[in-house]
């Protein structure tokens, strides 16, 4: 079976499983664990079924186009190498989920653990299976995110939170570099497709961006794979539950960097910069990791540093740039994953059964837990590179490779000695682990009495250790073919000859291996007491990665604050001034360069009435600007004057739709602002007494005045220059020509809104709905300023008037308030509503439409409120604006979706006319249904906003000030 859709299924399964596991109840741990194990196994079987494709040297590909023009597609690919890696991720994932089922305490939120674990597995598979560079970066970040959640799983624990945060920041920063590096690489290769990139070695290496791309990609890979100097996060990540460590630090998270290095090895390796950077970083990591591991007292800490050291070894092998080095790197990646996963699991068992991971406390556990001890010893021996185990084979390859000359630099000379030294360290810490934990006298003072672990929890370790043994003894029969396939896919025709046998005869690497084994044991015997006394590794122990990291973070925060203090202001006025001045400067620059001139088109004749209109309108605007501070009501009326002039200009300039909408909106805005006036403070006395005003205030106001004048002059000049130039041919031609044949309406503006650009309008009414809900929510918790809670002066006067008269109750004066308008509005209400519907219906052909109709309808409701008072209206009429909004959005969105049902794109409209006797032709386009949605949203929004503000006046006030008389103030009256 070679259906490549399986790849998509493999990728989706863990994410789907994660979503399910996240919602399982606490007691669903068995279900969650089985789900995780099942998904991993199913994925492994599906990947295994694709083996015939990749073993034939082909690449299985599956792609869903997204934005092909930008080379952005969901592409999945599987070749021999990624097959091996995916199997590693899935098989170890299955074993870890099995282990975790028995490891995790039932009191922990276990389903959440499995949700994170599966999501992480999915992200890791995403990296491995990606056939697109950008996609790799995306899943790369996902692994960072989910590893953060996994490491911080015990979030009540401070060190877990710190470790998780550190891992996230380090690998996340690396991820950003990686993204930039991959984008550069994609540009150099001319495509983001992995297969295209892999075929573009020459183009990439000759590109001037090769070096920056290389460095950025390497930073990404090195942070993820914990290479020096970014290695410090890994030991801190050991605060995670042990199954997480077993998974993240053996086969997955830290191997992501290695994976990327191997994947891109064919195109990036082989240059001098690659050799120098990768080899020296790998070598440093190998030595630093191994040296530090020797001095760890915590078992997991030791494994963490040993992981760093092995990752350094693989990086070093890749850095050498020789095909055999790459073979050894791939092989060691697999071997390290098997023995390190089993070691972590064994340490987890020791921790669980004894209650400690401190090497100094542990001793003689072999007699209490013989099976676990045997398993751990075999795995540790594999880590040390003991013959007949898998670790030995890849270490032999490494040593053989270390002996080869690569560049003729000092690295070549030193490498055999340093490689032997690192192997010796590796033997030393492995021996220390085995001897100190399992041999010697029975331990004393342990938190629990040690005993053998239950058989189920040992099963995953047994499987892994068996794999170590089988590969170690019979490499050609077990891993051989798969390794060959992987090597073939990475190296192609450059695949070197290598032999996977245990016995090569008496060779130099064998000698080095034995020197390392004997030397390591000798060092242990000599120094074991001193090692137990060590607080931290000598020489490099002072280089506290964590302290540096925190210092860097603190410095960044300090610098950011300083920058903010220096460059930012909290003062809105200053900000606005800066924005406007910047706009002015940027707007003036082109004119300085090209000069200012009016266009060639002649002025149209000035109509004196139009000029008069704007003399009045301009005067209104200027007066409003001057009076807005102390005479709010007057300013409001004057603004209305300017608005009216705008409105008349719209009619004048052939925009009836705009004039209509502007006029209606003007009314609603006026009422809105009037309602708001009630809650503003009393007119302020001048803060600066006469003659006492500081000079700076005058300067500031003068400056504002100048900026305002310049801004106005600039806009006028720009508008004049624009209007005197002929109109170029724009999109409008299409709209005018197609309005009737294509949109089925003769009012082009309305057809644009509901048909051509219907999607914009849908977005716009959504914005309206959001604003309305925001206003509603803000006002629910509204607390007016204490002095606004007092009854308005007018109401005091009314009450006093009522009190003074015989036979008058308080409020009697109001009974006859607005009596005549009330009667008129009562009768007008249905008329206005009918007019609103008329505007809506005719909108497609004549000025009108959903916006105008909607505002008209809300004005009808508004008038009712003003005339009758809030309470009276709401006793008789139930308006539920939120329903209107949701119904309108559903209606408009549904119209768009309905087009899908007929096989057209979203929001395609259909139109025809319906002839009704006596009434005539009714335009019956689906756009009308859309417009009804717009209508409903506008009604709901306007009414919701206005009612929400109006209601503030009749609410029982929360302020402490006692209120004189009834708090009710029917809205509209005081205003």
């Amino acid at each position, binding site marked *: 079976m070679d259906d490549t859709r399986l790849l998509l299924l493999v990728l989706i399964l863990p994410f789907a499983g994660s979503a399910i596991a996240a919602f399982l109840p606490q007691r669903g741990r068995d279900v969650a664990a089985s789900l995780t194990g099942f998904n991993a196994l199913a994925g492994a079987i599906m990947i295994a079924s694709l083996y015939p494709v990749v073993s034939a040297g082909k690449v299985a590909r599956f792609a869903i186009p997204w934005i092909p023009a930008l080379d952005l597609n969901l592409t999945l690919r599987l070749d021999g190498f990624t097959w091996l890696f995916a199997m590693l991720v899935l098989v170890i994932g299955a074993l870890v989920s099995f282990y975790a089922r028995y490891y995790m305490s039932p009191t922990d939120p276990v389903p959440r653990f499995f949700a994170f674990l599966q999501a992480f597995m999915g992200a890791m598979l995403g990296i491995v299976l990606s056939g697109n560079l950008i996609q790799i970066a995306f899943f790369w970040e996902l692994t960072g995110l989910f590893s953060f959640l996994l490491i911080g799983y015990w979030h009540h624990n401070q060190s877990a939170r710190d470790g998780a945060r550190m891992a996230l920041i380090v690998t996340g920063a690396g991820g950003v570099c990686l993204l930039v590096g991959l984008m550069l690489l994609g540009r150099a290769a001319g495509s983001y497709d992995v297969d295209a990139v892999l075929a573009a070695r020459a183009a990439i290496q000759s590109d001037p961006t090769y070096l920056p791309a290389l460095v950025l990609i390497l930073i990404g890979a090195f942070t993820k794979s914990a290479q020096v100097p970014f290695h410090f996060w890994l030991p801190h990540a050991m605060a995670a539950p042990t199954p997480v460590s077993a998974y993240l630090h053996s086969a997955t998270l830290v191997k992501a960097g290695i994976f990327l290095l191997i994947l891109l090895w064919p195109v990036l390796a082989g240059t001098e910069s690659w050799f120098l950077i990768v080899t020296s970083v790998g070598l440093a990591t190998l030595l630093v990791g191994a040296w530090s591991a020797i001095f760890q007292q915590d078992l997991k800490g030791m494994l963490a540093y040993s992981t760093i050291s092995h990752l350094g070894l693989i990086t070093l092998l890749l850095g050498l740039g020789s095909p055999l080095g790459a073979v050894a790197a791939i092989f060691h990646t697999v071997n390290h994953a098997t023995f390190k996963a089993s070691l972590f699991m064994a340490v987890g068992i020791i921790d669980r059964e004894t209650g400690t991971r401190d090497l100094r406390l542990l001793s003689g556990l072999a007699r209490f837990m013989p099976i676990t001890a045997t398993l751990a010893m075999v795995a540790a021996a594999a880590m040390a590179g003991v013959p007949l185990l898998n670790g030995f084979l890849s270490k032999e390859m490494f040593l053989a490779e270390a002996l080869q000359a690569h560049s003729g630099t000092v690295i070549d000379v030193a490498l055999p000695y340093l490689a032997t030294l690192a192997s010796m360290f590796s033997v030393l810490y492995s021996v220390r682990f085995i001897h100190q934990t399992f041999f010697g006298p029975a331990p004393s003072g342990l938190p629990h009495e040690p005993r053998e672990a239950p058989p189920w929890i040992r099963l995953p370790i047994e499987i892994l250790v068996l794999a170590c043994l089988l590969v170690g003894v019979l490499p050609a029969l077990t891993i051989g073919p798969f390794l060959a396939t992987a090597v073939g896919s990475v190296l192609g025709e450059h695949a070197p000859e290598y032999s996977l046998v245990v016995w090569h005869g008496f060779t130099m690497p064998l000698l080095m291996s034995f020197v390392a084994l004997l030397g390591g044991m000798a060092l242990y015997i000599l120094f074991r007491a001193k090692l137990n006394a060590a607080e931290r590794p000598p020489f490099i122990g002072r280089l506290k990665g964590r302290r540096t990291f925190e210092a860097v973070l603190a410095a960044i925060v300090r610098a950011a604050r300083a920058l903010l203090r220096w460059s930012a202001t909290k003062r809105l006025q200053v900000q606005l001034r800066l924005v406007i001045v910047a706009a002015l400067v940027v707007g003036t620059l082109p004119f300085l360069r090209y000069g200012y001139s009016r266009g060639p088109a002649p002025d149209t004749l000035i109509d004196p009435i139009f000029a008069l209109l704007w003399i009045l309108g301009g005067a209104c605007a200027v007066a409003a600007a001057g009076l807005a501070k102390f005479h709010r009501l007057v300013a409001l009326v004057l603004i209305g004057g300017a608005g009216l002039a705008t409105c008349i200009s719209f009619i004048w300039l*052939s925009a009836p739709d*705009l004039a209509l909408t502007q006029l209606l909106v003007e009314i609603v805005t006026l009422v809105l602002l009037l309602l708001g006036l009630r809650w503003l403070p009393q007119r302020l006395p001048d803060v600066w007494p006469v003659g006492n005003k500081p000079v700076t205030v005058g300067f500031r106001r003068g400056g504002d005045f100048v900026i305002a004048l310049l801004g106005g002059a600039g*806009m006028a000049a720009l508008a004049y220059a624009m209007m005197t130039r002929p109109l170029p041919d724009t999109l409008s031609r299409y709209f*005018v020509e197609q309005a009737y044949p294509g949109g089925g309406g003769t009012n082009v503006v309305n057809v644009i809104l509901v048909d051509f650009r219907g999607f914009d309008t849908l977005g716009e009414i959504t914005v*309206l709905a959001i*604003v309305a809900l925001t206003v509603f929510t803000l006002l629910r918790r509204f607390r007016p300023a204490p002095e606004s809670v007092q009854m308005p002066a007018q109401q005091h006067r009314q009450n006093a008037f009522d009190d003074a008269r015989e036979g008058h109750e308080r409020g009697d004066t109001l009974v006859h308030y607005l009596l005549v308008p009330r009667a008129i509005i009562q009768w007008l209400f249905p008329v206005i509503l009918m007019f609103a519907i008329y505007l809506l219906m005719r909108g497609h052909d004549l000025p009108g439409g959903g916006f105008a109709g909607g505002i008209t309808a809300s004005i009808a409701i508004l008038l009712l409120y003003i005339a009758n008072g809030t309470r009276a209206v709401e006793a008789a009429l139930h308006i539920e604006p939120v329903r209107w909004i949701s119904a309108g959005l559903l209606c408009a969105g549904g119209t768009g979706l309905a087009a899908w049902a007929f096989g057209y794109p979203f929001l395609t409209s259909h139109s025809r006319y319906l002839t009704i006797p006596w009434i005539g032709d009714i335009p019956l386009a689906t756009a009308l249904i859309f417009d009804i949605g717009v209508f409903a949203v506008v009604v709901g929004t*306007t009414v919701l906003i206005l009612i929400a503000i109006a209601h503030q006046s009749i609410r029982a006030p929360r302020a402490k000030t006692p209120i004189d008389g009834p708090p009710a103030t029917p809205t509209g009256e005081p205003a």
Partner: protein
Amino acid sequence: MEIVLALAIGILTASGLWLIFRPRTFQVILGLSLLSYAVNLFILAAGRLRSDAPPIVGRDPASADPAFYADPLPQALVLTAIVISFATTALLLVVLLASRGLTGTDHVDGEDGET
């Protein structure tokens, strides 16, 4: 006509700018209203000035010639702008009322400095 409309846009802009620099929230709201008039007129002017030519076409294909009508595109843009500016005015008003209730002042920064 062009010069009149240009001056009108300029005056509205200048008055609006002056108001949005003021420290009291109510002034800022009025300033934004004036600015939105100016901007709407400016966008409309981008379609050039035509009188007595509303973009309402006939059903006859021959009538659908852009030369007969004012430019409908800026009008469609302005129409949405008018409605949205109502919504933002409402939002701003409510935010200022809430801020006034919380801080006890109607200064734009939520604390009284100079006027």
